[in-house]
């Protein structure tokens, strides 16, 4: 199959970027989207041009490193799918495909399709953990956690930190990402003790990183490759208010 690509090329954060056209022919529809970009890059390199820089690593939908806007959608047209798990069979022969980086003030573009998502790491280091030292933990089964709760915690813990929720949000809010971690932790007995400090610190950090506010458009849930629910955001808001309330008392 053939594709016409319009790809965002930007030398570095300071430079201005622009869309550049590339045509690819005789592509195998079983190819993944990233393999299609590999194919393009092979061609560019042989010609002596610089290849398109994009982020990726595991190529199996679990590391969260890949991610770009494809025809205006984070990770492309398929639901609950990362860019690396998207295949050309999801496109039409001869289609024009627009490829851009994830955009948000908190995710500065580094080059071409690569953006800096280290703000997420800083949100985690502000409180997204249980303060347990390594080495001497109590017996794991001594604190029972019902199957139901463990599974619910898992649903939130499954976030891969890809940033699609931010990129797709018109306010560039990191609420889905942050709330997923807060929910994961607060559901489990291990994480309950620190719940107030955690939510206050993480929300503060989220703001400091210049993520926007959540205005409940729910676009994030639609684009999230892991199907993280917006109910997490409701839980975060509850936890936040609870923490403020308890602190005043």
């Amino acid at each position: 199959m053939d594709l016409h690509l319009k790809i965002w090329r930007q030398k570095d954060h300071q430079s201005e970027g622009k869309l550049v056209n590339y045509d690819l022919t005789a592509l195998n529809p079983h190819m993944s989207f990233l393999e299609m970009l590999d194919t393009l890059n092979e061609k560019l390199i042989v010609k002596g041009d610089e290849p398109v820089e994009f982020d990726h690593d595991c190529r199996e939908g679990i590391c969260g490193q890949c991610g770009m806007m494809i025809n205006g959608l984070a990770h492309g047209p398929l639901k609950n799918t990362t860019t690396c798990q998207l295949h050309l069979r999801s496109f039409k022969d001869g289609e024009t495909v627009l490829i851009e980086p994830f955009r948000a003030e908190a995710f500065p573009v580094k080059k071409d399709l690569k953006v800096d998502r280290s703000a997420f790491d800083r949100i985690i280091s502000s409180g997204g953990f249980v303060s347990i030292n390594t080495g001497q933990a109590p017996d794991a089964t001594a604190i029972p956690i019902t199957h139901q709760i463990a599974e619910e915690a898992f649903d939130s813990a499954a976030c891969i930190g890809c940033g699609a929720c931010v990129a797709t949000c018109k306010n560039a809010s990191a609420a889905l990402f942050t709330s997923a971690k807060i929910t994961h932790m607060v559901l489990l007995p291990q994480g309950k003790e620190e719940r107030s400090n955690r939510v206050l610190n993480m929300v503060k950090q989220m703001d400091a990183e210049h993520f926007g506010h959540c205005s409940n458009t729910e676009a994030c849930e639609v684009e999230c490759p892991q199907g993280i629910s917006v109910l997490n955001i409701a839980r975060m808001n509850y936890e936040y208010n609870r923490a403020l309330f308890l602190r005043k008392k």
Partner: protein
Amino acid sequence: MILDSKIPEGPLEQKWDNYKKKAKLVNPANRKKLDVIVVGTGLAGSSIAASLGEMGYNVKSFCFQDSPRRAHSVAAQGGVNAAKNYKNDGDSVYRMFVDTLKGGDFRAREANVYRMAECSLNLIDQAVAQGVPFGREYGGYLNNRSFGGVQVSRTFYARGQTGQQLLLGSYQALMRQVGKGSVQLFSRHEMLDLVIIEGKARGIIVRNLDTGEIESHAAHAVVLATGGYGKIYYLSTLAMGCNGSAIWRAHKKGALMASPSWIQVHPTSLPQSGDYQSKLTLMSESLRNDGRIWVPLKENETRKANDIPENERDYYLERRYPAFGNLAPRDISSRAAKERIDAGFGIGPLKNAVYLDFSKAINEQGKEKIQEKYGNLFDMYLKITGYDAYQEPMMISPSAHFSMGGLWVDYELMTTIPGLFALGEANFADHGANRLGANSLLQASVDGYFIAPYTIANYLSNEIHTGKISTGDPAFKKAENEVKNQINGFIKINGTKTVDHFHKTLGKLLYDYCGLARNKEGLEFAIEEIRKLKQEFYNDVKVSGQGDTMNTELEKAGRVADYFEIGELMCYDALTRNESCGAHFREEYQTADGEALRNDSEFQFISTWAWKGENNEPELIKEPLIFEEIQPTVRSYK
């Protein structure tokens, strides 16, 4: 050179306690005077960095991804082993030790294997305390299941994303220390050389992958937790960035490599579909619990799977290994698949796969039940291949997966360079010639959480009076210059072929001659070919862009340059082991019915290798394996 494995005194069960009792400590006030570099943020790297940070050392943590949370440990699906005996099915540390040693075809050190089993008890506790949501029974207690090659339930899991959840636990522990300032984080930094001063590891040279800057970092000890090098085969289950460069550069500075040719090939990955393909996705091994593996009886079969009647199918695993059938261990299942594919019975567009068929299970248990058990895997299969495995059998094929080899380490996880430690998949320890499923997450984690915190402290206790190590030392300048020269060299070549072209060609060579099966002629041929390919690479590779900016092609070039040398060493290693054991199947050494023939009287040792300079043959140094507790027996799964 005589290798000292430093195995402590006493009976097996007391060795680790004896070690800990005698290990030297560093006074808390002195810890902040000591710097440690940790390269890698997988389970091994993030757990040791977090542990050392917590203890009060100054830690610098490096990884090449944009965030430590993306280290390849994140991809592990199946589970992690621990001899907790929660199921009361007779599991114990001793039983786990025996299973692991036997699974590794008696090519691992008893003391290390025992310690891993022993520490497994604490790992689950540690992870749960961090908030890892392991699978639970309805009553609230931890659940577990059994995994290939053993008869007890000792595998703990978090759905099909155990590696992800364990890694998030250790990543969060790491980020907590980063927040406190006890660990400094350098993501998007790649280690390109090791710096040695007066015989000790004293620092590293890294490239900032965002800016292209070359930096020096000094420390009192260096820990490499850089994962496996199975990506040398190009097509593998590993992430694109996985590489062997950090350990290889350390090897060239004097650290010995052990068992480089032992690379596990996983039987249930998705087959290659074209030459554009960049990786092979692993399908969980758990599928083999209900899926039956077969190929057509007729060569070059053209009918669709569902049109081939039952009596024209060859369920070759059930035929050859009636006792274990479709659950035969990885090496055996992979080899049996290759045997059928090579004999002309492979299926799929490229005739490179075998069927994994659920029709019987669906008939007997109903589609719902199968959906409940494996639904996510069937969805993944559909997403990647476009085929519905409820309607027709899956296509699977063997793929390179895990490197049992790596830097040689002693019982303290220290390499032959004082002050240089290797943890997790980067070292050779514990798995012998074949790794049992779910033991690798375990090994990486216990190395970092429970073992290295003691052994590194023991080493550092002698470093208190050393004072700050300065990057002003000429050794740093020299190494920096070497790294810069190499980088400029790649760019100057300006040839006609891409880095990936060379990587793919090398990978194919290794699959064919140093993969699932090896023989003398093939290995000798491969060594010649690899040398030629390497020559061609240095004459004709094309790396576009510049050295002093972000440049992914350049990153790849450095890794592939090292792969040539690692590949050559793999072939040497395979060539000198005139026996078949675990992942190493030498065609000359097999029984009449095609099973591996181990040779304990001559090869009961670990092959370690010393670098002797470019174009010189490496030197083989043997570490004899002494079995005090159990006597090697023949592995049989018939």
